[in-house]
């Protein structure tokens, strides 16, 4: 059996100060390949801290974090950066698309730092865009696209490196409900194809669509019994 994608054991994050700020109390969490996990909680609950830890944007203060079997604590900065670039795909609330680059170029940007050959980059980017249903808008600028289209470009960018983990931070926060629905459909569809998805949200409607849900409150994580809720 393969390693779980994410294995948190006693992982905690405190920020210095008096008294210490416990952004995240010690957490044990295992995410397996193909999981679809929603992290729910109000703002200030520690969601973002968890996202930053999972996405290797921050280091835990205590505990161990294994991403695809690699103990992150033992990594130097450049290795952490490399792991982040290759194994984690990010989808942000604000999309973070470069406004003067076409959809294709925006997606190809994710390949910039991990591969050196330019031509396969564009091919992979086009393939990822087709996968999110934007095969007809390869050369459109983000400024000419709708919010839903932009978020799909961002998802394509997150997918193009075939990451072990797709980390979505409030992916529907800037979208109207109909568009949000379509984006959630897409994430679900990707999960059906085997992509491991973690969605961080404060929106219960978004969380309800995940197959697993964890709730975070005041830095404490608790897993709801997904099976019972589905019933």
């Amino acid at each position, binding site marked *: 059996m393969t390693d779980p994608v994410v294995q948190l054991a006693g992982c905690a994050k405190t920020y210095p100060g008096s008294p210490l700020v416990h952004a995240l109390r010690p957490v044990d969490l295992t995410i397996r390949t193909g999981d679809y996990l929603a992290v729910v909680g109000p703002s200030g609950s520690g969601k973002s801290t968890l996202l930053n830890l999972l996405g290797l944007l921050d280091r835990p203060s205590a505990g161990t974090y294994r991403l695809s079997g690699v103990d992150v604590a033992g990594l130097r900065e450049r290795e952490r950066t490399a792991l982040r*670039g290759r194994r984690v795909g990010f989808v*942000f609330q604000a999309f973070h698309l470069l406004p003067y680059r076409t959809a294709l170029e925006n997606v190809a940007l994710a390949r*910039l730092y991990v591969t050196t050959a330019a031509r396969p980059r564009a091919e992979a980017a086009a393939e990822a865009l087709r996968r999110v249903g934007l095969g007809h808008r390869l050369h459109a600028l983000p400024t000419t696209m709708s919010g839903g289209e932009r978020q799909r470009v961002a998802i394509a960018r997150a997918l193009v490196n075939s990451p072990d983990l797709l980390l979505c931070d409030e992916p529907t926060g800037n979208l109207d409900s109909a568009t949000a629905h379509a984006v959630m459909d897409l994430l679900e569809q990707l999960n059906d194809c085997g992509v491991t998805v973690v969605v961080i949200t404060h929106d219960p409607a978004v969380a309800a669509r995940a197959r697993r849900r964890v709730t975070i409150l005041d830095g404490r994580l608790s897993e709801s019994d997904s099976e019972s809720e589905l019933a």
Partner: protein
Amino acid sequence: MSGIRATRLTLRDLLAEALAGLVQRPGRSVLTMLGTVLGVGAFVAVLGLTSTATGQIGKSFSLLQDTTVTVDDLGGASTGDGTGTGRARMDFPPDTDARLARLNGVADGGVWWTVPLRNPVISPRADVTVEPGNGSGGGDLALFAASPGALRAMQPTLATGRLYNDFHQRRGEHVCLLGSSAARLLGITRVDNRPAVFVNGTAYTVVGLVSDVQRLPQTLLGMVIPSSTALNTYGAPADSPAQAVIRTRPGAARLIARQAATALRPDRPELLKAVPPPDPHALRDQVSTDLSGLFLVLAAICLVVGAVGIANTTLVAVLERTGEIGLRRALGARPRHITAQFLTESTALGALGGLIGTSVGVAVVVATALARHWTAVLEPYAVLPAPLIGALVGFAAGLYPALRAARIEPLDALRR
């Protein structure tokens, strides 16, 4: 941990990213470049104009000037009686021509002066002895004495006739040459009928008409008689002292200038002072320093302004693109990749500004040269490194913003 190969950024990708960064805001890029364009343009234009102007001096500083040495008679002034002018004196030896001719490097040389006659009446007719300037008279004409050597050193072009020579000099013959202007005033157009000119009633046979001279052009406005004749008839030069004029072989002028006084008056060389032609190199250097110093300072100020402009814009771009920086970091860019990208952008901006500035500078130099009918001279050492200077300015200006960009935490950047 075989799966964790470090992320990287090839030079080609780096350049492509930097270029894309510049092109996405073309208007701003152009404005940012302006300072560098002006600075580098001024730099190239100043150096180009200076070398063009000095090249011009080099051109006008001709072979003629470079082969002319004059020797002045200091006379009384140096012997201390203080009334050097007005007293008749002649410190050149009678055999000046021969002494000069013996010097290696002298082509021709001799002594000349303005004959000390107050209002000489020069006339084609013997009966006009007074009343200067009445119709046919030559009251405004000057009378010069020149040894045959000085005459040859003048390199005259004869309209007709011939020069007087050592024979006339030795015998103190009353012969003369007329300058073209003087001849026209006196109504003399030919010499084969042996016309005579009367100076205060004394007859001189005209042996030749001079249409042009290379040296001592003032003689064209008067008549020239042998120096021995002048000395015998009118005495030593008084109002304006005698002067030796020497035509040297090319390159020998400064040597001859050092030797002439001693060769002419081994007993009292301090009576004479040789004047060499100005050194063209010294002349050129002087012009360069005079002209360009101030403008180079101005160009440097422009460059500093350009650097501040680039630094400012790059800093603004970094702040503006915080989200992009965070995204790139999330996508696997290391801090050094971010630094490299912004540094490349600012350097490219500087280099582009330098390139445009160089073109503008060259255009200014060429346009100026064309307008003045000069030859444009552009030293490669001034033009070729100019775009490089722009690149350096851009690089230096981008250092701080680029390092600052690298310190941006992706965490904060992505939250915006």
